């Protein structure tokens, strides 16, 4: 019974009390907030699996080297793996242009003021990309170590880049992102002589935050560590 006006709960006509408050009743929903995104992600995942396509969600802060690594990967593995790319940025098609020049089919998604890709955007992009069966699709997310972590896109694996110029403390400062990573690439290792970066500490921290993750140091520019990254890719591409 309503304590304010004495009428029974669900008594029917919507009404307000003298103090302006509405007489209300509780409707239990028990619904996940991101249910719609999760459902679209599940559909994306099923669609990709049915076609034997390996989809990676590639994330990092802006400028950590995602596109440069992808350019090198596409170039070195041309003829061996077909790599399609979905590029996510607030504005411009600069990264799509680079990946097209590297020989990849690519779709650019511009989020405007949005800070992350979501499953609906990826679904549309996959339709436009139309990747062949047995290929690899890399979704290069918006540069951001915070927001993309919450949004399942339907990927098989999350690959997070942390460059040596950012400092070794990024994993502990952004645990939600790094906890979700299956592979962490410590990038730009060619710059190690010029920066203070404790690789051992970074790796140890990652062991606490994401115990199951593989950690690989890599330089796309110099080629150091690139072979283990290619092996990681090959092992997960359906043959």
């Amino acid at each position: 019974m309503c304590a304010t006006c004495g009428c029974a709960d669900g008594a029917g006509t919507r009404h307000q009390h003298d103090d302006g408050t509405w007489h209300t009743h509780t409707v239990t929903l028990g619904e996940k907030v991101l249910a719609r995104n999760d459902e679209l992600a599940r559909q994306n995942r099923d669609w990709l699996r049915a076609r034997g396509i390996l989809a990676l969600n590639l994330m990092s802060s802006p400028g950590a080297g995602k596109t440069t690594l992808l350019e090198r990967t596409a170039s070195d593995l041309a003829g061996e793996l077909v790599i399609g790319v979905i590029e996510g940025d607030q504005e411009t098609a600069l990264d799509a242009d680079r990946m097209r020049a590297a020989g990849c089919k690519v779709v650019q998604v511009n989020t405007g003021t949005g800070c992350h890709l979501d499953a609906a955007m990826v679904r549309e992009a996959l339709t436009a990309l139309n990747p062949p069966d047995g290929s690899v699709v890399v979704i290069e997310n918006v540069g951001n170590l915070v927001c993309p972590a919450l949004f399942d896109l339907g990927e098989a694996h999350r690959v997070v880049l942390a460059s040596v110029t950012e400092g070794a403390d990024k994993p502990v400062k952004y645990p939600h992102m790094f906890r979700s990573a299956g592979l962490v690439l410590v990038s730009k290792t060619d710059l190690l002589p010029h920066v203070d970066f404790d690789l051992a500490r970074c790796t140890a921290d990652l062991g606490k935050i994401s115990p199951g993750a593989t950690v690989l140091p890599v330089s796309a520019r110099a080629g150091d560590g690139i072979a283990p990254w290619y092996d990681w890719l090959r092992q997960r591409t359906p043959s």
Partner: protein
Amino acid sequence: MHELAIAESVIDAVTQRLPGAKVTCVHLEIGALSGVMADSIRFCFDMATEGTGMEGARLEISEPPAECRCRACGAEFQPDSPVVLCPCGSPDVAVLSGEQLKIVSVQVA
């Protein structure tokens, strides 16, 4: 910020489940490991409901602690940090709850 997308998802979900309803309050449950900040959601919710049928609706947010179980020693504990370590020191931990982002209920006039 992602809390805006989340606030919009809350509004969409409620509007879809209860079309036309006069919603005066939404009760959310935000797990401690969900990566979402309650204050940011409140701010974004007010922005996102402006001009909609849910304008003026209140948000009630409960933030239950996360529950984890250590795979190394079997202990169950509530982590006090997003870097989840068992008191025994092991990072090999199963998250039993804490990542949820849920609309528990709404008050409807």
